[in-house]
């Protein structure tokens, strides 16, 4: 939050905007508890000595975390997810940057269509796209695996990258580029030396957002992963075996710590921008 955004709120608060004293903070806290309680309860089971997900909890143990390291399939799935998310986030951010720069700096016939297309994956149920890609890859004899999942994820992450970068690019003064070019820089040099550094934080935040979108995605990965199960796909396959669940939860706790750090980082970078 910038100081500029805060100050008008102060003055409006003085004239009594929101003088109706509804317990909004209470509502927020109750909903927050509603959001956190089930997750915290689930996390208890990473430390529970019970065989499955049953109450009451009989004792506490760290064994599950040791089992995580022995479960090769699970580690492979986690590695697949990581690879897919890195590839998808990198592709989506690069393409989103291209869309953003082209759309804000150049008037061309297909400009509106390009932005519309880049945002369109938000508007269709993922299962439809999943089915389409599944059929297309089958027709083209492309073997399913981490690359097909990454390609699909780059498409569903593209709207997020485009919207984040577009918002930032609209706020940049085009005169900066004119100045660089008047001083003799070619346009690619201008992009590299002027625009990219200014976009830095937005690029990082777009990449992290895309990473999270991909890392947690299941509907598409389930159809396109083939034998390279990603972590959500692996999890989905294992959930029906109750005895497995505590180990899965332990793995998820480990992964969560990673995602949490990423989310906080993304949010911090965006709010500083």
């Amino acid at each position, binding site marked *: 939050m910038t100081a500029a955004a805060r100050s008008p*709120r102060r003055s409006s608060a003085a004239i009594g905007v929101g003088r109706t004293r509804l317990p909004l903070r209470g509502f927020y806290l109750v909903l927050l508890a509603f959001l956190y309680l089930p997750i915290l*309860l689930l996390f208890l089971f990473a430390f529970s000595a019970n065989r499955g997900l049953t109450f009451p909890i009989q004792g506490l143990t760290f064994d599950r975390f040791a089992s995580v390291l022995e479960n090769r399939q699970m580690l492979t799935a986690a590695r697949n997810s990581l690879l897919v998310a890195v590839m998808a986030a990198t592709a989506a951010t690069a393409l989103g940057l291209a869309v953003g720069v082209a759309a804000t700096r150049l008037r061309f016939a297909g400009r509106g269509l390009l932005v519309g*297309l880049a945002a369109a994956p938000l508007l*269709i149920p993922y299962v439809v*796209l999943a089915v389409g890609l599944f059929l297309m890859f089958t027709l083209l004899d492309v073997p399913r695996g981490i690359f097909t999942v990454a390609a699909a994820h780059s498409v569903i992450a593209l709207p997020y990258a485009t919207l984040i970068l577009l918002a930032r690019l609209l706020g940049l003064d085009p005169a900066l580029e004119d100045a660089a070019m008047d001083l003799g820089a070619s346009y690619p040099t201008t992009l590299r030396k002027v625009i990219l550094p200014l976009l830095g934080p937005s690029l990082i935040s777009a990449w992290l957002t895309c990473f999270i979108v991909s890392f947690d995605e299941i509907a598409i990965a389930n159809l396109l992963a083939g034998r390279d199960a990603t972590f959500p796909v692996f999890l989905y396959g294992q959930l029906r075996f109750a005895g497995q669940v505590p180990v899965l939860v332990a793995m998820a706790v480990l992964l969560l710590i990673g995602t949490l750090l990423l989310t906080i980082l993304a*949010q911090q970078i965006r709010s500083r921008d």
Partner: protein
Amino acid sequence: MLGRRGALAYLAVPPYLWLLGLFVLPLLVVVAVSLQPASGRIDFGAGWPSTNQYAHLADTPVYFRQLALSLAMAVGIAVTATLLAYPLAYFLAFRARERAGAFLILLLLPFATSFLLRIMAWKLLLGRDGAINWLLTTTGIATEPSTLLIYSRAAVIITLIYVWIPFAALPIYAALQRIDRSHLEAAADLGAGPWTRFFRVTVPLSLPGVLATLFMVFIPTVGEYVTPVLVGGPEGVMYGQLVQDFFTRAGNWPLGSALAVVMLLTTLALAAAAVKLIDLRRLA
């Protein structure tokens, strides 16, 4: 030396090709396969295009009942999640002041937890050996654990609302933040009370965010199949599950494609209708 126009033209080409190849083309392939005469795998043999699959769909009312039910569930979930998220967003935008950033992160953290695990968390609460049943039986309110809580349509609805709330608050929060506070001051100066200001100024100005939220929840919910599988049981089946099953279990791709096309068109038509409706009301 590459000029500006040249460089920008090069920039627009890769995303265009990427989206045509990996977004537009697959959707066209679904349509093409749905027009296949025979069932089974892909086979563009004699008789293509044919409306066989759609004729079969039209003869099977259970698909339409399922689609209508899934759409109704998605609308209900989107509306409820939006209604619950609005006060949250309002609190963050108008009341939380300098702590808004921290409160926002707190709200978003659950969303960073694996989607599947958040669903599992509800299974843990509602399941036969879950927390609620354990509480009910140990306190003596119930003599026997109930299986009614889980594997029902209600369980699917509650779980999905739970999953969407943090996400739903974001577009509304963004819209509320953009509201120029001087409009509210002007309304106050002209004698509008707090409720009048809220319903005549704040709500109309936040409508774009509300609309964005409704779509961002509605569209993925229509195609959901993971939640119904995990907590819905036979009663909580949703349309997305039927589509998915034709590709994984049943292995009837043309019929699955036809189901997918129907879902896509219905979703887009409803979205377009909603945009029209709300635009008209804003003009009035």
